[in-house]
């Protein structure tokens, strides 16, 4: 890979190496605050990168794309590429944000207002 030829690749080059040079997620787009949940473990972990496996571990509890990126110390776009791989393999579910899902109803608004007041 091109990144390996450079003795001191920049941080972004290294990150692209994580995705095998891919800048776009596969499949349907998902939000930076979509909620990711691990729903299966791979039969053959060798087929996945350490970053893929780390993401699976983080998402055993429902976690947003943004937080997974933070935990993995990877930019969000790179994180999305990795998560799209895991979705394709059927290992994670990715649920849209409340507003996109159309569940931002009276009850949620009230819960958000109460929660903010209680901070």
């Amino acid at each position: 890979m091109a990144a390996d030829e450079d003795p001191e690749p920049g941080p972004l080059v290294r990150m692209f190496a994580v995705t095998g040079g891919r800048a776009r997620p596969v499949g349907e787009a998902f939000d930076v605050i979509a909620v990711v949940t691990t729903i299966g473990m791979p039969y053959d972990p060798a087929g996945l990168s350490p970053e893929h496996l780390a993401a699976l571990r983080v998402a055993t509890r429902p976690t947003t794309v943004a937080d997974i990126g933070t935990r993995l110390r990877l930019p969000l776009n790179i994180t999305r590429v990795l998560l799209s791989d895991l979705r394709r393999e059927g290992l994670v579910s990715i649920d849209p944000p409340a507003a996109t899902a159309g569940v931002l109803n009276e009850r949620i608004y009230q819960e958000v207002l109460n929660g903010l007041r209680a901070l």
Partner: protein
Amino acid sequence: MDYARSDGRSGALAIKILIAGGFGVGKTTMVSAVSEIQPLSTEELLSDRGVRVDDTSGVETKTTTTVALDFGRITLREGLWIYLFGTPGQDRFWFMWDELAIGALGAVVLADTRRLGDAFPAVDFFEQRRIPYMVAVNLFDGARRHDPVVIRRALAVPEHVPLVPCDARERESVKEVLLTLVRHAREMSRVGA
């Protein structure tokens, strides 16, 4: 597809609020004031450019391929979070706003009375896309206190849009701003329904 489901399999919900405004107006400060995590400034790659490894050899000098994106988080309860995203201040990153704006509950346009004009693009953006927004006028030390009526007129902000003073450094003040936005967004959803 997972994306089309109307209720999350996990039952967890994340809500997105955008903090917009001109460069250096205090967006990151505002996020810090209420976030339970240090606002993270990730170097984002511009996914619409189709950048490939082969093209990134000169990455350190090609600053146009990255953009900083700040976000913070507030946990309201287990499985209900608010994420605050500071929108990129530079005009050339408008396309990122488009993506961030999808599925947002609403937006705070942070304005500085010394540079009111910097808030125009953000006001325009949310008006055009019918995204609930409000204006928070950041009262910096030494900033002249302007008449809200004058500011509203200067920014051409409609009457129904909340316009409040705030101190982006103060947690309570920012909380008040967010409460105002959520109430406004709820009002808009009732009207629009």
